[in-house]
């Protein structure tokens, strides 16, 4: 940087990213966002001001050194950029895709005060994809400790915690109830937003760190949390089982055939690959006229999956207005582009039976926004006499989840009023050595927040076990022919 960059000197427009044509992509499961090319990434990197006091780092739940990796991109040192990111985030290809950056790093970006903020998410993804393409792995030098860590759930919280504990020299085993690891990244987020190949690649990286994945293992029922400590020899346990238990609306007709949770739709489609039925055995009856209730990210996924499965009309019903929709703006925008109909300020009141136990229509009422409620958003209230019906053969509820009861049923862990696991500030539960984080503690949130919780719990576990990170150690000698400079050594030692 010869001259100091200012908001006036940088490219005023954000570098656009190629996306698949909405008409073409609405009929397939290819990834919508094609990602930056190398010249595009370098161009966008020139929009970063390298602020003396960057706000973006604080805006990131895992505090990635964002200006640091953008600087490396500008220098065309992409491997260096990868090393900077993986210093704090092991899954850049995932987070670059699914983080709600507009509310996090990009939301506080100084450039964003005047212009569109730096496309931090797209840059992160660029680096993550390049790492997968080139099989870069940052395998730190790990000094083994004698500790064994058991992790319950292989979703983002569990993966993040596993990565940190493996780097700290612990012997880590991750248990997953499904037959494939990845949690919500696998069963929930569809391929057009996060291809399964990316999840596979990130899991492989963890395996290279020595993390073991044990699928088909329902902790709580096959063995309990208490048994993990007392019999299976784990020195600490992290529970990241997710929220689970989908909410049904509790209106007449919500047990009719054709009414299902977004979790069921997405699991059948993504994990069980039911879109290839009958080539695979799991069925997924396609609705011709699909209605999705809710406007969060899960709702957007359900809408766009339904469109891709061949539904003629796909309608979103949400009781508040577009401004209050919890989904990422980009997701709503993509859904609109793909021809999803949005009925803002509408609420279903009854699902109507076709006489044979299946849904044929949903009756809704128009809403208007009243006084702000506890969440600070204006409370929607029904407009009397405004009922209307939408013809439909499939209604999908994407209105949130409640706490999954299994761990509560099978352990003595203290739960909070809503059934989530109670923890202290370090994410330790009421049982010594047992930590918890992610949706099972906070209720439904985002992938990166779950990863942040996994990392925070890892810090708590290290403190509990008396492990202390000593930071990177510069050594010139090559151990087993591996250059330490290239491989970002982190040395960890038991205190």
């Amino acid at each position, binding site marked *: 940087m010869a001259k100091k960059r200012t908001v006036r000197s940088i490219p005023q427009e954000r570098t656009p990213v190629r996306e698949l044509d909405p008409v073409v992509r609405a009929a397939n499961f290819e990834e919508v966002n094609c990602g930056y090319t190398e010249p595009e990434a370098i161009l966008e990197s020139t929009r970063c001001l390298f602020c003396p006091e960057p706000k973006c780092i604080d805006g990131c739940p895992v505090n990635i050194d964002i200006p640091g990796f953008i600087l490396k991109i500008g220098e065309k040192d992409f491997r260096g950029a990868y090393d900077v990111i993986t210093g704090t985030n092991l899954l850049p290809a995932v987070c670059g895709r699914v983080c709600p950056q507009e509310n996090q790093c990009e939301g506080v970006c100084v450039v964003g005060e005047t212009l569109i903020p730096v496309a931090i998410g797209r840059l992160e993804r660029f680096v993550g994809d390049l790492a997968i393409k080139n099989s870069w792995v940052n395998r730190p030098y790990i000094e083994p400790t004698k500790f064994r860590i058991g992790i319950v759930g292989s979703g983002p919280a569990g993966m993040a915690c596993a990565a940190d504990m493996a780097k700290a020299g612990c012997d880590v085993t991750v248990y997953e*109830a*499904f*037959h494939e690891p990845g949690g919500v990244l696998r*069963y929930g987020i569809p391929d057009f937003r996060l291809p399964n190949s990316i999840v596979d690649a990130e899991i492989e990286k963890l395996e290279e760190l020595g993390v073991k994945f044990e*699928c*088909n*293992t*329902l902790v709580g*029922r*096959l*063995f309990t949390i208490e048994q993990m400590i007392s019999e299976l020899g784990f020195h600490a346990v992290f529970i990241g089982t*997710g929220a*689970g*238990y*989908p909410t*049904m609306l*509790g209106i007449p007709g*919500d*047990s009719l*055939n054709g009414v*299902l*949770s977004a*979790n*069921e739709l997405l*699991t*059948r489609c993504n994990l*069980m*690959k039911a879109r290839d*039925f*009958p*080539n*695979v*055995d*799991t*069925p997924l*009856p396609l609705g011709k006229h699909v209605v999705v209730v809710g406007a969060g990210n899960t709702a957007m996924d359900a809408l766009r999956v339904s469109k891709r499965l061949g539904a003629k009309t796909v309608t979103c019903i949400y009781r508040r207005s577009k401004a209050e929709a919890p989904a990422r703006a980009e997701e709503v925008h993509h859904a609109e582009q793909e021809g999803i109909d949005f009925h803002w300020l509408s609420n279903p009141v009854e699902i109507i039976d076709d006489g044979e*136990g299946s849904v044929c229509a949903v009756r809704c009422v128009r809403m208007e926004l009243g006084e702000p409620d506890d969440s600070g958003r204006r409370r929607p209230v029904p407009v009397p006499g405004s009922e209307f019906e939408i013809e439909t053969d499939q209604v999908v509820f994407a209105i949130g989840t409640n706490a*999954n*009861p*299994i761990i509560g*049923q099978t352990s003595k862990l203290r739960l909070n009023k809503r059934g989530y696991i109670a923890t202290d500030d370090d994410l330790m539960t009421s049982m010594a050595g047992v930590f918890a984080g992610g949706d099972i503690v906070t209720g439904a949130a985002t992938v990166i927040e779950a990863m942040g919780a996994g990392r925070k719990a890892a810090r708590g576990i290290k403190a509990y076990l008396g492990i202390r990170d000593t930071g990177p150690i510069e050594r010139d000698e090559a151990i087993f022919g591996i250059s330490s400079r290239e491989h970002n050594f982190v040395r960890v030692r038991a205190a």
Partner: protein
Amino acid sequence: MTDSSNQKFLIVRREDFSDVTFLLEISHPMMARAAKPGQFVIVMSHAEGERIPLTIADFDRERGTITLVIQAVGKTTLEMQRNCQVGTALYGLAGPMGIPSHLSDAKKVVCVGGGLGVAPVYPQARAWKESGAYVIGVLGFRNKDLLFWEDKFRAICDELIICTDDGSAGIRGFVTDGIKLALEKHPDIEEVVAIGPPVMMKACAEATRPSGVKTMVSLNPIMVDGTGMCGGCRVKVGETVKFACVDGPDFDGHQVDFDDLMIRLRRYKEEEQVAKERWSETCRMRGIGSEAVSVN
């Protein structure tokens, strides 16, 4: 299905009760240790397979095995009947799932099993016998050829009533007739457990409703994950909606809305038919029809 003897979920024993019903004993020492009466597993027979819930019919902690009894009715179970041989392994086996049956301190109980339901009611009958209760078994089959486990039940029941639709074994009639016989003979029966097809469990609940004897049923709705995550298995129990996988599978039979359950079980009827026909066609083309089924 993979042939590898050191693999997980290895099938160590198989027994064919009839041309539709067969038993698999699967090696899983940890699950054998954890399993309790009333719990179920989710099975995936191969990587492209469905996840299907099956009630644990028995578990042997010393041998380190669990036992499943399966009826070949749809594509997945027909395929399992053909492919699941001793020495092969299941692709996936997760469990034990669900809340174990509550073993009440009832002194006199009736354990009712209809058809395939005979298998899952066995561990509960045995547990009651072990706890000192007077156990009356009522088993129902369409005919004598389908009958299985009579000896196992004789060994643990104080009384055993076999019912067949055509009278070819035991009394002629349904399990509800057996329940009525038992209730007439023993006015002090405190609890009935009924496991079988929904229509049978509904009839059992109706048979005991007049006397008000507590009647527990084990529900088998369609599931995907079995861990409370998809809600596909939701059932109406009284005024509330429950997920059979994590809130059950046992519920008070007098509270369950069986009509709703039966409608929901028809959800994938068309797809089930498509899959089954396609599979039969594949078998026919490969020349491996029903003769390949009669193994052992």
